[in-house]
């Protein structure tokens, strides 16, 4: 299964996320979820970015709304537009989950 997971919040409740398994996994960060792409705690990346084999994306509009730019984003994460997210949903992933 090709699964796209949406994170819209800066929560530390990754239990469900950690249990998710997919042949191909994409993680889309939006809303307050963008903080996973830009914040380090104790010098460490967010645990969300530690999922092995996953591809990570962050919504540009929500970064900018919160005062960040692409220059602030973790190198693991690709900055995307709304149109890019549509393409990810329609072309790259079969199922979606909103955490």
């Amino acid at each position: 299964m090709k699964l796209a997971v949406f994170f819209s919040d800066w929560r530390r409740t990754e239990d469900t996320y950690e249990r998710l398994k997919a042949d191909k996994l994409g993680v889309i960060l939006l809303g307050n979820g963008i903080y996973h792409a830009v914040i380090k705690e104790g010098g460490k990346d967010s645990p969300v970015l530690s999922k092995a084999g996953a591809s990570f994306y962050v919504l540009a509009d929500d970064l900018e709304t919160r005062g960040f730019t692409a220059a602030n984003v973790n190198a693991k994460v690709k900055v995307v537009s709304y149109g890019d997210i549509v393409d990810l949903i329609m072309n790259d992933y079969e199922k979606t989950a909103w955490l």
Partner: protein
Amino acid sequence: MAELTLGVFPSLVGSMSLDFSFKLAEAAMAKGHKVNMWLSGNAVMMAKKGQKAFKDYSHIEKRMKELIAKGMETTVCEACAEARGYHKEDVPEGVKRASMDWYLAKTVKTDRLLHIGGE
């Protein structure tokens, strides 16, 4: 062209996810996709017409009407609306009311489904 169904549950005031839902719908339609939107839970606040647009405050009714005019099928959960005091006469033009059967039927037929959780 493919079909995308959005199940939308967050309120306009409680989070920015309702904004996201409509912007994603707009982007999908701009790419030629058909979009169905199911508004349920606190998202049924979109079932109340005449909401005032304030400066620097999210106002989605105008965008919703534009997307409906372009073909987005938009339905609110009738029970969720009634539970919050939004009645048939309150519904903006072009918005339908139905039971959850409508959403279930869409989830079976659609090419892609994104269920956007509420607060």
